[in-house]
């Protein structure tokens, strides 16, 4: 391989890795939002997942146990959000913010003793034979298992929403909870499930960061990725396939920034670190400009509280 190709492959592989946590988190939020619930607490749930997965890995020595534990922790805190917004009918925006603030605080608190602890993170898995193909093998068949899992989950969610009856019911609940309730669907229960799926996915996204991407725990290590995932759902106009596109786009922006520096260009790391955030704003502006497009694609009941007797 020539050095240029090598660099390119390295950038693409790194992009895939940078995009994967975004795929998980955005996919979870997409399902949650499809049911009509807006959970702004992804950042908090990711941090809880990251720290829970890390601690579990340290204690058990198994990163797989870490991943499972991260998903459980994410589900658990999302349940807290569910109780508040679905049962106690609190404002979803405010509760999501609370979840983020809580997640930042709690993860920093419980993770305190683990800063700097080394772990053996999840290792890439070479697919036999296919992994040995030059270039293509490196690009496609030498990733860690979670990269493949993200693609499988994406396909599964797309299939679930478009092709299954349960997916149809979920979309119906997010479209009009009154109508779904009148027909006889358990709106609140369905939304609980969707919120919990979102929590598990955020936990998984967090685990990817602390067990694979940078196998260590640092305070606030998500650095706004939870919010970027939220923007991705809008960018994707609530379609799973476009989540993938958006996630890799953002992954790519982060990685290209790093490579610019590595290539020896004079650029402040601080200014380069702004890129993903500025890109998020740009993308939001471009996609939101057409208000009708958002209105047609967004679940009509998104963010609205539902009280069955009212």
């Amino acid at each position, binding site marked *: 391989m020539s050095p240029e190709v090598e660099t390119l492959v390295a950038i693409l592989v790194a992009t895939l890795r940078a995009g994967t946590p975004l795929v998980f988190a955005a996919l979870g939020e997409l399902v949650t939002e499809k049911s009509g619930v807006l959970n702004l607490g992804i950042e908090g749930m990711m941090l809880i997942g990251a720290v829970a997965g890390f601690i579990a890995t340290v204690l058990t020595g198994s990163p797989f146990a870490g991943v499972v534990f991260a998903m459980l922790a994410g589900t658990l805190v999302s349940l807290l959000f569910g109780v508040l917004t679905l049962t106690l009918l609190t404002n979803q925006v405010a509760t999501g913010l609370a979840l983020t*603030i809580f997640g930042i605080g709690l993860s920093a608190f419980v993770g305190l003793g683990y800063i700097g602890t080394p772990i053996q993170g999840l290792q890439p898995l070479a697919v036999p034979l296919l992994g040995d193909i030059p270039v293509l093998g490196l690009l496609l068949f030498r990733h860690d298992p979670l990269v493949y899992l993200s693609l499988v989950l994406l396909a599964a969610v797309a299939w679930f929403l478009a092709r299954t009856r349960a997916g149809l019911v979920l979309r119906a609940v997010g479209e009009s909870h009154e109508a779904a309730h009148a027909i006889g669907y358990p709106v609140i229960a369905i939304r609980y499930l969707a919120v919990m799926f979102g929590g598990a996915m955020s936990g998984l996204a967090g685990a990817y960061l602390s067990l694979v991407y940078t196998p260590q725990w640092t305070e606030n290590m998500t650095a706004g990725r939870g919010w970027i995932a939220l923007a991705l759902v809008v960018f994707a106009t609530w379609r799973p396939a476009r989540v993938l596109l958006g996630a890799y786009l953002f992954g790519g922006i982060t990685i290209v920034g790093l490579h610019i520096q590595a290539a020896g260009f004079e650029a402040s790391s601080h200014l380069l670190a702004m890129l993903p955030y500025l890109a998020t704003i740009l993308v939001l502006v471009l996609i939101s400009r057409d208000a009708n497009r958002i209105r047609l694609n967004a679940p009509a009941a998104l963010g609205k509280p539902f009280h069955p007797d009212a």
Partner: protein
Amino acid sequence: MLLRLEPRAQASRGLRIAAPLIALALTLGSGTVLFGALGQNPILALHTFFIRPIDSLYGLSELAIKAAPLALCAVGLAIGFRGNVWNIGAEGQLTMGAICGGGLALAFYGVEGPWLLPLMVLAGGLGGMAWGAIPALLKTRFNANEILTSLMLTYVAIQLLGYLVHGPWRDPEGYNFPETRLFGEQALLPVLLDGTRLHGGVVLALIAVGLGWLLLSRSFTGFQIKVVGQAPAAAAYAGFSRGRVVWLSFLIGGGLAGIAGLGEVAGPMGQLNPTVSPGYGFAAIICAFLGRLHPFGVLLASLLLALLFLGGESLQMHLNLPLAITGVFQGLLLFFVLACDVFVRYRVRLGPAVASPAP
């Protein structure tokens, strides 16, 4: 069903005031359990957290110093939240205020006069406003979600500050520490009380609370903000502009946050460094809700949140507990505040539904 909510025809007035107090009590209760679980004597820990930081005049003045930026940010946020405008980028607007006001102090280093400080306050306010104007523009012009844009801009502002203090603005005699030189004497807010660090920013915060109250409770503009927030369709029907409320919220919120940032760098810090704020802009969100989006309530809530910051430091100092405990308390408090709100709007009934199914 174990728990049922019956909507109240009229929101309960008494509970409206009691709800934040109940939330506070629940937070204290959780704190007791938490400290117990950490193997601490809960009474001692709570004392160290809530009483010890403010058992002296100096402690009280420190409380006021921390409450001032919180109140400044939170009053602005409360105005926006009333109008259903979700500015959660106060931290970024605060940072920009610090950069603009502090930048002025650095630019006029050595040629300063009594005119400098007012100019810095102005620059801080305008810097915050300008940073708030971006999400407002993107919202009104391009319909972009203001929660995400204002938050993204916070990250951008913090990186910009990092760039400046690591690079062009770094103190040439500072042994490569990422911080600017100390501001000149005329660029610092006056100390109000000898022996403390109590500075003029506290006065600015009190003025902001007063004006915020006048705006929200007495003015027609405040009425319009509330209508836009509670019933957008009614606002359109009455001819109140949503766009105007978005702009107003972001300009006021950004301006006040900017002044708060300036107050930090021209007050206790006296220079710019990468962490101008320990998260005042985010904690202000809690203050706004805990204070029921009412400026006087916000003032009380700011004092409480300031105490949480001080208490965290006190625990670290005296009981060797991690500072991060402050964040846990903040999150818990906000959860309880939101959950207690349910009692204001609904009657909560336990047990199975009163409506027994037909036999």
